[in-house]
């Protein structure tokens, strides 16, 4: 499978581990990502506040470039970029006048023919391939998949599910696609209340106190629901939940994983390739805990199997004694 790839600005900066883990996962699952040549910023959280046309034109330039480069589908893993790109495609299709106005403003042809795909949709579609690979790994390892010990809260935030008219690949209030990916990895999605609440988004710098309040509530609810970690698919959400967590003085801290990092672990890729060292909340204690639990589970299973075998042997011996 070949996809045009729109990384967006954060993937080259504060969320490099998202880009790294995505590339590692894509290579393992034989997906070719073709980065859109000379892509530009989608306008993210600022353009739409100042000028609606600009908020459509900035992402549309990238769709136009993808078109010119022969793509029919663009992967935008950053939730904010996905939202702006998909929103622009819908605006051009639906709002009167934009189909002619936007190419004019861009100064390049644009027929709005490219489909914008989110990371959740892509990974959901790849669930069978992920499961198949886990099956092969399971035959080689003496203990089970350590991710079977992981309880994780799928955090969607705003931009992957709203507005429903422009995202719409999952339910806006009770989305389940990330849970499907978690299950494909062998882990357990927890039921919780804050999956589609806002983390404070773009106020990370300009109104940090609001971000701390909103993100703290999300982490607290995940913990109360039995989660060992939170799963994110957005650089802004990850920054607010991971980087800003140090100001919340949580004990123990709550690890926050990118969805591609979880899939990478499930595929057996080494954590070093998945960029965990770039996190502010140390993920090592979580991995150690999962390995220990997997060891215990494997030992218990071996013990149960041995007991069963001994019982069967005793039964056979007794039978032999009788005859």
């Amino acid at each position: 499978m070949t996809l045009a790839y729109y990384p967006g600005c954060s993937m080259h900066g504060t969320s490099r581990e998202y880009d790294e883990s995505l590339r590692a996962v894509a290579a393992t699952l034989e997906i070719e990502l073709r980065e859109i040549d000379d892509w530009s910023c989608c306008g993210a959280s600022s353009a739409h506040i100042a000028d609606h046309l600009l908020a459509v034109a900035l992402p549309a330039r990238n769709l136009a470039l993808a078109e010119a480069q022969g793509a029919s589908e663009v992967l935008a893993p950053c939730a904010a970029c996905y939202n702006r790109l998909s929103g622009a495609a819908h605006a051009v299709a639906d709002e009167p006048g934009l189909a002619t106005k936007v190419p004019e403003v861009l100064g390049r042809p644009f027929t709005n023919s490219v489909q914008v795909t989110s990371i959740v949709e892509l990974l959901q579609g790849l669930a069978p391939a992920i499961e198949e690979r886990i099956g092969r790994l399971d035959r080689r390892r003496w203990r089970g998949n350590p991710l079977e010990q992981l309880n994780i809260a799928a955090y969607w935030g705003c931009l992957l599910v709203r507005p429903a008219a422009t995202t719409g690949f999952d339910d806006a209030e009770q989305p389940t696609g990330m849970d499907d990916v978690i299950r494909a990895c062998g882990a357990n999605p927890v039921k919780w209340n804050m999956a589609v609440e806002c983390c404070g988004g773009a106020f990370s710098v300009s109104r940090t106190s609001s971000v701390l309040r909103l993100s703290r509530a999300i982490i607290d609810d995940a913990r109360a629901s039995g989660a060992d970690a939170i799963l994110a698919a957005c650089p802004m959400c990850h920054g607010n939940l991971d980087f800003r967590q140090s100001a919340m003085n949580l004990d123990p801290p709550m690890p926050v994983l990118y969805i591609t990092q979880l899939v990478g672990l499930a595929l057996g890729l080494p954590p070093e390739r998945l960029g965990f060292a770039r996190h502010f909340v140390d993920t090592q204690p979580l991995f150690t805990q999962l390995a220990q639990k997997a060891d215990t589970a494997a030992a218990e299973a071996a013990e149960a199997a041995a007991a069963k075998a001994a019982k069967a042997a005793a039964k056979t011996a007794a039978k032999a004694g009788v005859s």
Partner: protein
Amino acid sequence: MGGEMTLPPHDLMRYAIAGDRERLFNDDSLWLCLTCETCSARCPNDVDPARVIDALRELAALEGAGHGPRNVAAFHKSFLEQIRMTGRLSEVGLIMQYKMRSGALFQDVAVVPAMLERGKLPLVPSRIRGHAEIKSIMAACAREQALAAEALAATADAPTAGPAPDADSEVAP
């Protein structure tokens, strides 16, 4: 963010319907909306408050009513300026500009070494080849917005103009 707004989204919608610019523009509430879209997703009457709030912010700027509280305005202005200069957002550039505009010079200074250590702050911004194209896109959009503002002013001057202009349809190109 509704909890931090003096005027929560439903109040903003009511004042918009009433055309009460004074209440809308002399309050920070409009600028505290993060466009999480929850109100739009849950509105039982299919109003799209998130989109109306964006249009009201655009209108406020066009009518000279400002760009919101200093920190929030500084952030968005710096963000767009980064795009204009390089075509992409350099997070380092954004923070530097934001500090100059907001006056929050020492905010988050302590975390810079940790960010650098994690390779999260590339110091050299990547300027795209098409940066001139981005400048011209932004200029074209600004011209369109100026035309819309003129049209809006003409409607407001006309004696037949109602007291509650529909911000959404008038500002949206």
